[in-house]
């Protein structure tokens, strides 16, 4: 709760700080707020006590899982604000709105991690999404950015509608919004009511839409491609993390029992297989870098969905999700930072050629991030993928084998980008200079991608 308030307050502060027309002040206050939130969360994890422990609300419970995910959300938001800062040096006009919206969106994400009733869940989802509709269009000079914004808004609000519709059915079947009570009501049922089943299906559809899995993935390449890179990074890391955790909580606590699980499980398995192949096969032929990342992120959604069908206890599957999404977030931050630094308006993969000459550090960050996305050891992407796959093996070993085959396919396009970075350019290009802030962010991302899995054992 403390961290939530801090992030929200610093979002407000940075909004007002924008009146000073000094981008560094806005970014500085937002970053300070996030740092404070990180420290508070770590403190709460260590001691088990909140600083303002009188501030409680029954709709929100910051238990250990919620705290861990909030920590990840704060860290990744901090990094993404860091890489997005360069843009405002030249054009300080809209710093305040952008940073403020990002902070509010992070607030929404944190609410989604801590919700205990559906009402708070919906609030969190909207607080998370609405700022992103705006942020996706924040690059007003670019038509594609506006297109992305509109597309995301229309499809996103449609999905929200479907979610609400499904929620209404669930409410009709159980008569409550509270997770625990819904769970109890479902357990008490002798036969599953069809009303509930329709509700669950509708909620699942909106979930599949929100995370961008096939067959509801069509928005994501366009939005990822059109939105400003930092926003793409935010969507791929923070938004996905929050959405996955919130829905994992909902599906394993409420709907993850007995017959009901079997009911949606079959549909999800089919969707996972489609997602994996659609994401991978479409990525193979991309020539634009951000589109490639969009399709690769669809594939990653497919891998993550394995957790939903793995029939694990929530207490066991949520740390796995945390580990996976956190290391995925680090690699996304790294690769987006590279894309921003290269600043190729046409965004072609070939534009990365000769990066090693232009700036060796950038090339290393790019290569390591891509290796992590591809899941090649010793990057944390590999360990995360391993943990995920091995947890799913027991209940769906053949699905894991399909996922591994897809890893094999995906190595082709990751490798294509890696070798583009490693090969020399046709003509001489000027060197890329990085600001200290970007370098710091990239260092954190690099340490995260390379050493996250090595640091983690030290903390436990």
């Amino acid at each position, binding site marked *: 709760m403390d961290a939530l308030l801090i992030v929200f307050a610093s979002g407000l502060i940075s909004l007002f700080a924008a009146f000073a027309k000094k981008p560094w002040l806005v970014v500085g206050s937002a970053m300070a707020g996030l740092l404070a939130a990180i420290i508070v969360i770590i403190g709460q994890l260590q001691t088990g006590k909140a600083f303002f422990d009188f501030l409680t609300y029954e709709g929100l419970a910051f238990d250990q899982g919620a705290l861990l995910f909030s920590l990840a959300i704060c860290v990744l938001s901090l990094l993404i604000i860091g890489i997005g800062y360069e843009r405002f040096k030249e054009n300080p006009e809209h710093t305040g709105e952008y940073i403020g919206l990002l902070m509010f969106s992070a607030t929404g994400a944190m609410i989604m991690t801590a919700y205990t009733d559906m009402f708070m869940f919906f609030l969190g989802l909207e607080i998370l999404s609405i700022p992103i509709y705006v942020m996706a269009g924040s690059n007003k000079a670019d038509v594609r950015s506006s297109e992305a914004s509109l597309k995301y808004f229309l499809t996103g609000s449609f999905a929200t509608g479907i979610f609400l519709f499904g929620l209404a059915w669930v409410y009709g079947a159980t008569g409550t919004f509270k997770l625990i009570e819904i769970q109890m009501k479902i357990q008490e049922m002798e036969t599953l009511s069809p009303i509930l089943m329709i509700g669950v299906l509708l909620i699942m559809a909106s979930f599949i839409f929100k995370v961008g899995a096939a067959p509801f993935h069509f928005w994501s390449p366009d939005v990822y491609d059109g939105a400003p890179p930092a926003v793409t990074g935010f969507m791929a890391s923070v938004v996905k993390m929050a959405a996955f955790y919130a829905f994992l909580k909902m599906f394993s606590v409420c709907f993850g029992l007995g017959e009901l699980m079997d009911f949606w499980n079959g549909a999800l398995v089919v969707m996972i297989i489609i997602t994996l192949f659609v994401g991978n096969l479409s990525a193979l032929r991309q020539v634009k870098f951000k589109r490639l990342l969009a399709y690769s992120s669809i594939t990653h959604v497919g891998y993550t969905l394995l957790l939903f069908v793995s029939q694990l206890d929530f207490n*066991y599957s949520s*740390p796995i999700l945390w580990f996976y999404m956190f290391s995925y977030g680090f690699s996304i931050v790294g690769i987006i930072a590279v894309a921003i630094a290269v600043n190729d308006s046409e965004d072609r993969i070939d534009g990365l050629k000769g990066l090693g000459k232009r700036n060796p550090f950038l090339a290393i960050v790019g290569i390591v991030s891509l*290796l992590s996305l591809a899941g*090649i*050891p*010793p990057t944390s992407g*590999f*360990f995360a993928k*391993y*943990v995920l*796959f*091995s947890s799913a*093996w*027991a209940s769906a*070993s053949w699905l*894991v*084998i399909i996922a*591994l*085959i897809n*890893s*094999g396919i995906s*190595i*082709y396009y990751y*490798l*294509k980008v890696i*070798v583009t970075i*490693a*090969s020399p350019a046709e003509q001489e290009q000027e060197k890329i200079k990085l600001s200290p802030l970007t370098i710091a962010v990239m260092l954190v991302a690099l340490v995260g991608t390379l050493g996250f*899995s090595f640091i*983690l*054992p030290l903390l*436990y």
Partner: protein
Amino acid sequence: MEVLLFILPVFFALSVLIVPKSGVRAYGIIGSLAVLGVVIACMMQYSNDGTVHLFGNKEEWLRSTGITMSFGYDGISLLMLLLTAVLVPLILVSNFKNELAENRLFTSMVFFMQLGLIGVFISMDGLWFYVFWEITLIPIFLISWWFGAPERKAALMKFFIYTFVGSLAMLAALIGLKVNAASFQIEDLKAVILTSKTACWLALGFFLAFAIKIPIFPFHTWQPDTYTKSPMAGTMLLSGIMLKMALYGMIRWMIPLFPEAMSCLQYPVIILATIGVVYGAIIAIKQKDMKRVFAFASMSHVGLIAAAIMVWDFDALSGSMVQIVNHGLVAVGLFLAVEIIERRTGTRNLPDLGGFAKQAPKFAFWFAVLAFASVSVPLTSGFIGEFLMLKGLVQFDMIIGIIAGTTLILGAVYTFRAYQLSMYGPVTRDQFADLHWSELIVLAIIIIAVVILGVYPAIITDFVNPSLKIVLETVSTPSGL
């Protein structure tokens, strides 16, 4: 002490990046010799009773994943470590005359490669084995990508994807095995009792990874292209050490983990490997590119080792250990000989070459000795190795043994054909400089080692036999315990 095995390569790989250009050559050699020193110190320390000397932490490293930090070595691992530690300085020295030797990135990648190889040989935990196995792929790929022949790209992509997919099969098998075991520790994995059918499937996952790396017959298509397109040092690393990882993996992991699968895998693998032996040799005879000749020759030789390992007989195993060392040394030597010719004439095309024996008698002599070592003439280590392996194969199945035995004849054909076409015949070049001291050193060390091991192979066999015995014993009992 053992931690240095990891720290030194990482240290040299990173620190070489800031060494001034003129010092890179010397720095690389010093670094690789330092690693050699550590390996020798480990060997001195090892009691040679065949048990695994464990170090590292047996507790879980990452919570609830079953990954442990267990590393260790026995005689087999130490022999592979020694081979790595000896070959890396030899490869660096043989590269001395190339511009590449000055390149910091290149030297750095060689050290990363060494780190991966050392890790593979001392991992006693399934997942770390896999991790290091994959780590080796990145530096060798980058070495070939950055410094290889102009039209290398397609071949290298094929190489990477091919081997990566194979490794994924191994990962799947590892995960499938681990769900039944307490942890990834090798003893825990061995303790798992499987039905013969699951064991076959899981062993097949391992086999796919190893078969692609070795390469065994139908999985070899990446190999000749990658060998020819890589720079000389890359080819040496690939054939000298990297494919030994797979042979080591068969001895240490595949067969001991799945003794139940032996019955269904043994015949198919031996037959495939034997086909590879003959097939590689026949293709080698027809090649015009000298490097391709030795690439296919390497495939032929290694196929024989793989077949002998699958026989799983004590003599055949100890013969294959001798041959692993011998092949590592001889392959490096032969590829150096090719490189020497290419450096001076700019081509490897056999019809364009000839007559160098008159102009460069020293080179002719050393190359000839190397060629003899390659065809396993008595008094070279190849003889002992191939003799023991063929003996095992003949005992296993007479026909297979005889077919595999043709490698001796065919080997002589392609080796001496390459030698004769390049060294004898009419003089084709106005001048052909004789050996540079760095080339001479490498060739001389290799030949001396090969001859010493040929005369007195007990140096190797005494060292590995106790460990081999223990590995054999663990498998011969039905439950694998």
